[in-house]
């Protein structure tokens, strides 16, 4: 009797230790999979930096070096001058900052109206606005191109800023945030005789600061990454934005491309995005993930 019991215990121990081994192997496989995927995800960034520091001769070696033998910082200087990045940076920064500020004002006012004020047709109007989000932007571009031409806006900063000041998505995002602020605060403020604008400025804006920061970052990144519209309406040297400048400076047609310099230019254009990512990741992720979950 006692023997049988120990046999059973031994079996049990075997099973649990086998399970433990299986579990450990499973964990190792999971980490291995994630490590491989992480390497694949990171590789283009590594290759960009690695290539940007090489000489052209070293870059062309049939057996590539995984770290430059001689680090060539001058590629970055050359990239800056070849692609005239300075001017492009300033243009993009100007368009980004102005359009973000104006867009924030419009978004805050509209979101406030939709969240706090009562007026006829509010829900119908809001639903109508949300419905336009389904329409692909290209459909608007055809007419907007004609419109801005009529306005005489071609090759100005205005054409890069004004047509995109209203984003239904941002209004929606901020309205959701405003709705979470309790009505009592608003009513109390009304009793105190606080004006709507003052209430908006002193209560609602501070309480929804994270959303406003998310909107700011997404809007700035939008200016940094926009390509199609600027290419169409403001591709002169004075107003060209960074992405267009980068693509135009290194056309395939120009034949013998100095790839290290090109990679240096790409790295310079990507750098601000990385900085934003490192310091403000939380806000980007919040803005991005909320784009659908709460709907």
């Amino acid at each position: 009797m006692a023997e049988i019991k120990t046999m059973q215990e031994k079996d049990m121990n075997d099973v649990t230790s086998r399970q433990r081994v299986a579990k450990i192997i499973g964990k190792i496989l999971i980490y291995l999979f994630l490590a491989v995927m992480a390497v694949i995800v990171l590789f283009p960034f590594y290759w960009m930096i690695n290539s940007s520091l090489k000489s052209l001769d070293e870059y062309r070696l049939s057996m590539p070096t995984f770290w430059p033998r001689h680090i060539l910082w001058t590629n970055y200087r050359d990239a800056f001058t070849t692609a005239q990045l300075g001017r492009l940076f300033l243009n993009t920064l100007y368009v980004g900052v102005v359009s973000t500020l104006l867009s924030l004002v419009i978004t805050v006012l509209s979101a406030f109206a939709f969240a706090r004020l009562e007026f006829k047709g509010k829900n119908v109007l809001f639903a109508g606005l949300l419905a336009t989000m389904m329409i692909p932007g290209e459909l608007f571009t055809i007419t907007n191109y004609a419109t801005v031409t009529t306005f005489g806006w071609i090759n100005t900063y205005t054409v890069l800023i004004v047509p995109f000041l209203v984003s239904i998505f941002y209004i929606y995002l901020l309205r959701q945030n405003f709705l979470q602020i309790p009505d009592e605060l608003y009513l109390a403020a009304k009793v105190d005789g606080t004006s709507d604008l003052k209430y908006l400025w002193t209560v609602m804006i501070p309480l929804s600061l994270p959303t406003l920061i998310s909107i700011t970052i997404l809007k700035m990144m939008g200016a940094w990454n926009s390509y199609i519209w600027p290419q169409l309406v403001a591709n002169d040297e004075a107003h060209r934005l960074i992405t267009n400048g980068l693509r135009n400076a290194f056309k395939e047609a120009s034949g013998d491309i100095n790839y290290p310099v090109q990679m240096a230019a790409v790295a310079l254009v990507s750098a601000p995005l990385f900085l934003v990512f490192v310091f403000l990741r939380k806000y980007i992720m919040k803005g991005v993930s909320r784009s659908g979950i709460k709907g």
Partner: protein
Amino acid sequence: MVESKQQWKAWVYLLPCLVLLAIFTVWPIINTVRMAFLDGYSGLKEAGGETFSIGVANFVKVIQYKRFLQCLKTTMLLCLITVPVSTFLALLISVALNSIKFLQKPLQTIFFLPYVTNSIAIGMVFAAMFNIVGSFYGTENEIVVTAGIVNNVIEFFGGTRVNWINYGSTYFANMTVMVIYIVWNALPFKILILLSGLQSINKQYYEAAKVDGSSKSRIFWRITVPLLGPMLAYVIITGFIGGFKEYTSIVGIFGASMGPAHDAKRLNTMVGFIYDALATNQQGRASAAAIILFGIILVVTLINLRVSNKKVHY
């Protein structure tokens, strides 16, 4: 009295928004429909006093146009390959990330990194990586232009190099590069959404399943996937919508020529077709194509909603 004052005030708050929307959103919608149904409409010709008859000629022309069918084919192919592949990979990565504690945050950060990149800029990095070892245009007396790391790796393992994107490359090779780039680009958003979905699943379901002695794969298909249904539907819908609007990632790799040097526009997409029609002052044709694009997006969204509503059990 107070109420009517508030009404008035609300419209003042909304004024800048509504004025801009009227000019840049509402008018374009009306005008696009108008232009699409005016046969052979062109803004230039209209300014010259020409009139157009109402009809569906633009749509007929677009559908019969070979270039458009080529664009539609490329767009569809990219969608049908990249959306399932990136969704499945993102699901695997999310489930793996969700099952670990050590290093979870740093790995999460790494996987989100491609999201904040400029798709033209990183497209140029991919183009450099997939470059050929040899000449660019296939002409004689040409210097060896560059080496691409992908071909270096292939040759290192004894394979023959592939002409991925340069002069003389095949459509298949071009599409392979595009699929890899688009999937790479699409992963972070999907992982972000799916992981946050996984983290909000109640742990009790898993404990109950464990008590029942369900196998791992059973738990995955019977608990994780159904409970993740809404998130999956969301990333698939947005994936398809983004896929149908694919354009800049191709510009990133191939430049504005949208194809290898010997066959420009080979990889043109629906959006590219619209811009080409716009550039040649054929607004009627561009509008018709834009409406077709909208129609496709609408149908895909509706089908997806239908399917996911049926599949999701709460």
